[in-house]
């Protein structure tokens, strides 16, 4: 999960991510991109995968599963987040 410290969408998604982790045992790597250049460059390195799904931009939050390249971005319902995580 790529997120920004001052991004309200990211803040809103955090309780859902916690719930997901508790319910499924899946752990998401949470990478802050505006205050950590290494994380920012990592997100940029996935631009070809992220852009088509996220309006041609590196939007936060972006949830990327590096095993199957499934991406969702922005605030989504818990059901959709779980669907993405368990695909």
């Amino acid at each position: 999960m790529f997120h920004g410290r001052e991004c309200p969408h990211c803040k809103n998604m955090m309780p859902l991510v916690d719930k997901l982790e508790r319910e499924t045992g899946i752990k998401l790597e949470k990478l802050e991109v505006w205050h950590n250049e290494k994380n920012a460059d990592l997100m940029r390195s996935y631009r070809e995968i992220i852009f088509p799904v996220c309006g041609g931009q590196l939007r936060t939050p972006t949830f990327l599963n590096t095993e199957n390249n499934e991406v969702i971005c922005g605030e989504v319902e818990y059901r959709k987040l779980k669907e993405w995580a368990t695909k």
Partner: protein
Amino acid sequence: MKKFWRCFVCNDIHYGVKPPEICPTCMAKNAYLEITSEEARKVSSITQTEINKERFLQTIENFAEKNEFQVNPDKEKVLMLIDGVFNNEQNQGLKYCPCRLTTKDFVEDLKLVCPCNFLIHETYKDKKDGECWCGLFVRKKDG
């Protein structure tokens, strides 16, 4: 394609397809020269004026007043976003949106400077409850 233009009389910087015929700052006629993005950046950093968070909020409220959108009534969200915009300016040089990461292409990333042109974005355009990606601006109820 948009380019940078500089008024050779007063150093006013314009970013657009073509330069203004009359400089809005010094009123000189046909005074704009095309410049590189690097020169624009240098000139703007010399002439940069300090603007604090309160003034920025006032500026965007004034900007929104005459338009079909408004600053989000959720004050907590707005303050968080403005913190992000200012942190990005301090760390990255411009008031980038806190909800979209820069690509490291300076000209491309100008689209991320707040306020951005969200009127054409899918999160706003043709949407009754449209808002910019980060939610700083939302469509007025009667807008």
